[in-house]
């Protein structure tokens, strides 16, 4: 890429006052570096991925409201986690977490188990227990 072709498209980087560094070639075809504030193609991919996450969060919220899944699923999605990552954070097997994702099992969980989830989501046990999706 030539230095003059470097994209300067508005992007998510600005929210953190960041620019990114790229290796580009100058007029004599020699390598140098230059800063870019963002690139539309990359922003499109990030936006798509955020959109998908938001859809999943909304779906989880509705499922909690309809008593199909436990609040664990909602907070898992909210924290961009999947079962594997969540299981690692609470130090349990994935199949245990899957059971806890059912509303019936969730209601019977002890406070110490709930605390593990609450810590993983950085919320209080009450917030976790009382979330009804409505």
């Amino acid at each position: 890429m030539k230095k003059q072709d470097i994209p300067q498209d508005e992007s998510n980087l600005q929210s953190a006052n960041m620019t990114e560094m790229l290796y580009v070639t100058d007029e004599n075809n020699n390598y140098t570096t230059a800063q870019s504030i963002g690139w539309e193609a990359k922003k499109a991919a990030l936006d798509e991925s955020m959109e998908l996450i938001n859809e999943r969060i909304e779906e989880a919220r509705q499922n909690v409201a309809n008593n199909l899944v436990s609040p664990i699923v909602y907070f898992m999605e909210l924290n961009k986690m999947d079962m594997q990552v969540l299981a690692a954070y609470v130090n349990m097997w994935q199949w245990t977490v899957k059971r806890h994702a059912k509303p019936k099992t969730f209601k019977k969980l002890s406070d110490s188990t709930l605390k593990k989830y609450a810590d993983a989501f950085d919320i209080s046990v009450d917030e976790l227990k009382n979330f009804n999706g409505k």
Partner: protein
Amino acid sequence: MKINFEHHQTAHCENGVASNLLLNRGLKLSEPMIFGIGSGLFFVYLPFLKVNFAPGFSYRPMPGAIFSKAAKRLGIKIKRQKFSNPQEAQKALEKNLEQNIPTGLQVGVFNLTYFPEEYKFHFNAHNLVVYGKEDGKFLISDPVMDFATTLSETELEKVRYAKGALAPKGHMYFPTHIPENVNLEEAIKKGIKDTCKNMLAPVPIIGVKAMRWVAKSIPKWAEKKGTKVTNHYLGQLIRMQEEIGTGGGGFRFIYGAFLQEASVILKNDELKELSKEITAIGDLWRDFAVDIARVYKNRNSKSDIYNKLSKSMLHIADLEEAFYKKLRKAI
């Protein structure tokens, strides 16, 4: 306490940490040099491993591999430590700082407070340097950032003990021995040979062959999984390709800069020409990303668009194969 440490922004975190740590010890090697000697160019496709609800693609080798390989080829010794106890991890880090040793850390990105929201994912192979502690806060040189930052004790512990795939487990590292005379020529040659070997590997999940597998899968995803899933997979492909620190086009340009430097050191003009060639291939990777982005925008795009993307990627794979074959002969 604050160690005299120069923060330099780089294009990729691991090269950056390596290059900044070595500079601190008096060995001046550019980011492209570390990247080239450490054989940073790579491609792997793991169709059955799901990351962010898409198959696993990576344009980079295993975390830590670039610095480890570069160090080995340059005769540098690195000490690496992991800790099961976070308090011990913090103590060991503080002890290093007291001894004036800037220290590299592997961290998870999700809880990095200074990152933009969109970049916070459960990705655990990011690298940064801690070079001091002031007013209870650690001084952080994150090589993808324009400026040095800070993290509190709790914040640093969170990112050092991020969980999930490639969990860092408090991983810290720093050079302990740097030889007086570094044999740069030999190291460069070894780095190049290794890259050619990997990219031309006769295995379907690595290198050029893996690129072809992905390319051929694109129309199949569209047929079997539908537009939405396919677009998400392609999005993941661009993100792995062009996001901070990982890279398709970006990595080709770093490699181009490496070959240019190498051509001077090895007095080999052919490498200069190959530098131009990989730069042109890098441009094609970026065009490919733009084409994918266009697919999102026109959601009701024609069905042959996926065939076209597949063809573009196959074309890039062909060019890369020819490139590595020439490169292998040039040294």
